[in-house]
């Protein structure tokens, strides 16, 4: 077990910077998820920790040791790849044992470790099969087994569930979480799926264009997103954004003229964010605005209402718990609970 310390880590390819200085201390035993859209540099960052990509600037330390110049095999890490990367000509047992064999462990020690990992992952019956005889979920488990047997200080996961179907993905997600809790090994996990990120992470790093937009616990990010990007990325359906401005008295007024119970520095352009689940239907007399409903999705557990704020105004999503019978074309009075409003500077995208 170990901490992983990233200090001002940068990466550029032929002068093009793709990672712009990341600072983060990952605590011993912590499960950190790096999340972001494709091309944001999240895999590059992980591969730099693994030693598969050179570090352009800054340092990465595992435990107390700076590993910038350390070979991947000597970093005491294990990595699980998106396409599993199992050796196709080796059996499950050989796949898991290969790294241990190279490290010169005795035959008995290898057997013991593989058997233990196989038991944890319920692979006992599959040890003599080759990867092509396994299903996707089983291959994924073998890939994790190969990581576990090494008993590394850090697990690295590079979108390990992306190749699985939706149902299996949920199941494996739970398994990974359980496994990590059981082993207590520091883990870094890369994904573009915000549900995976929210459910697995002790802490999240939201990466956008090579910059860490925000680092924090999933609920912190949900409740207090530091930027427009994080606000839009975390949470599903995504947060509603409305243009507004602060008047001379600092009161925020939406483009449609709705006055909100929130203040911002006078005269500034503001983007107001509110999550679909935080908008509430209000009594007609107390309505701050009206939603012109144009579509309703009944999902059973909740209802998603699509519409616009006022006639022809900005698009707005509303999520109601349970089944709500609302017809398209309805004019729905809405309230904006002041404590659920997120205000962002329109120019910088930062939280106000």
């Amino acid at each position, binding site marked *: 077990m170990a901490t992983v310390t990233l200090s001002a880590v940068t990466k550029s390819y032929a002068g093009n910077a793709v990672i712009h200085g990341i600072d983060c201390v990952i605590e011993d035993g912590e499960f950190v998820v790096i999340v972001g859209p494709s091309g944001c540099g999240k895999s590059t960052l992980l591969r730099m920790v693994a030693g598969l990509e050179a570090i352009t600037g800054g340092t990465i330390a595992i435990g107390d040791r700076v590993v910038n110049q350390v070979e991947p095999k000597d970093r005491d890490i294990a990595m699980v790849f998106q396409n599993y*990367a199992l050796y*196709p000509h080796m059996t499950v047992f050989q796949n898991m044992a290969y790294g241990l064999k*190279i490290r010169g462990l005795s035959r008995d020690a290898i057997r013991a470790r593989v058997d233990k990992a196989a038991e944890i992952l319920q692979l006992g019956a599959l040890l003599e099969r080759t990867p092509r005889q396994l299903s996707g979920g089983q291959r994924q488990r073998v890939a994790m087994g*190969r990581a576990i047997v090494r008993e590394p200080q850090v697990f690295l996961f590079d979108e390990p569930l992306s190749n699985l179907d939706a149902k299996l993905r949920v199941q494996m997600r739970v398994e990974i979480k359980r496994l990590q809790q059981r082993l207590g090994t520091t883990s870094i996990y890369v994904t573009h799926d915000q549900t995976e990120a929210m459910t697995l992470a002790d802490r999240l790093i939201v990466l956008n264009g090579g910059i860490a937009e925000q680092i924090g616990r999933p609920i912190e990010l949900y409740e207090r997103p530091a930027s427009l990007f994080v606000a839009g990325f975390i949470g599903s359906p995504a947060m509603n954004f409305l243009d507004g401005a602060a008047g001379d008295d600092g009161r925020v007024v939406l483009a449609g003229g709705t006055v909100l119970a929130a203040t911002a520095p006078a005269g500034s352009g503001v983007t107001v964010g509110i999550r679909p689940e935080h908008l509430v239907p209000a009594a007609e007399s107390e309505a701050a605005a009206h939603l012109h409903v144009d579509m309703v999705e009944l999902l059973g557990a909740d209802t998603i209402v699509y519409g616009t704020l006022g006639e022809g105004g900005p698009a707005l999503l509303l999520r109601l718990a349970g089944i709500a019978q609302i017809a398209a074309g309805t004019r729905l009075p809405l309230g904006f609970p002041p404590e659920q409003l997120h205000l962002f500077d329109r120019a910088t995208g930062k939280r106000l």
Partner: protein
Amino acid sequence: MESRSGHLSWLPHLILVLGLALVGFPIYVTFVGSTMTTPEILSGHMSLIPGGHFVENYLAALTQGMPQLSGVPVARLMLNSLIMALSIALGKMLISFLSAYAIVFFRFPGRMVCFWMIFLTLMLPVEVRIVPTFQVTANLGLIDTYGGLAIPLIASATATLLFRQFFLTIPDELIEAARLDGAGPLRFLWDVLLPLSRTNLAALFVILFVYGWNQYLWPLLVTNTASMTTLVVGIKSMLTVDANTPWHLVMAMAILAMAPPAAVVLLMQRWFVKGLVDAEK
């Protein structure tokens, strides 16, 4: 395989049988000739039923010194052919496997230059460079040696390209997984690349063995003494301009020359087809 029932099912069979007869008949005649005496063959109405001199002819061909070959028996020529074909096949596989490995998996200055230089040699058939090659071989004192027979034919662009294409299909993540497992370049070569390439290697071996065995022009040039020449060249030497050609022995030699490549193809058929057809992934 798609099974086809109905009124046209005999047609593919007919075509196959006709093709087989067309290819097989001359070989059959050769075989029949190898079981007869020369007067019987030259009688003008040669029988198509094998004669009674099978054992006698083949024993004579294999063990007796041939006057046309300065007293060297065919067994010696077969050995020469075998050594040459094996050296060429194995040498080509080794060289091309290693060069493809270097070109695909390593970043070094001039990598693409190396690749294109190998590729360019494809444009030059052996015959075009045969005079300079002979000169070099002669200067190295390799005339009438196994080295001279095999080494100049070992460099192979085709096999290098084949391996290169195959290596390029190996996912980067597999290479990275091996790196994380602590496998260095040689271990990766031995533990991962070689086992994954075995069907390719088998297919290549078959093709290259036949190629090496059937060489004619190069062995003809590079060998002067009869005891170093190959079977294919030897057959030609047996054909004298006068009427003294021992046709029964020539026929037997032709059959003997066909047997090893045929055996290699038959024995490795399964691997051969697999290597050409499936990518095993």
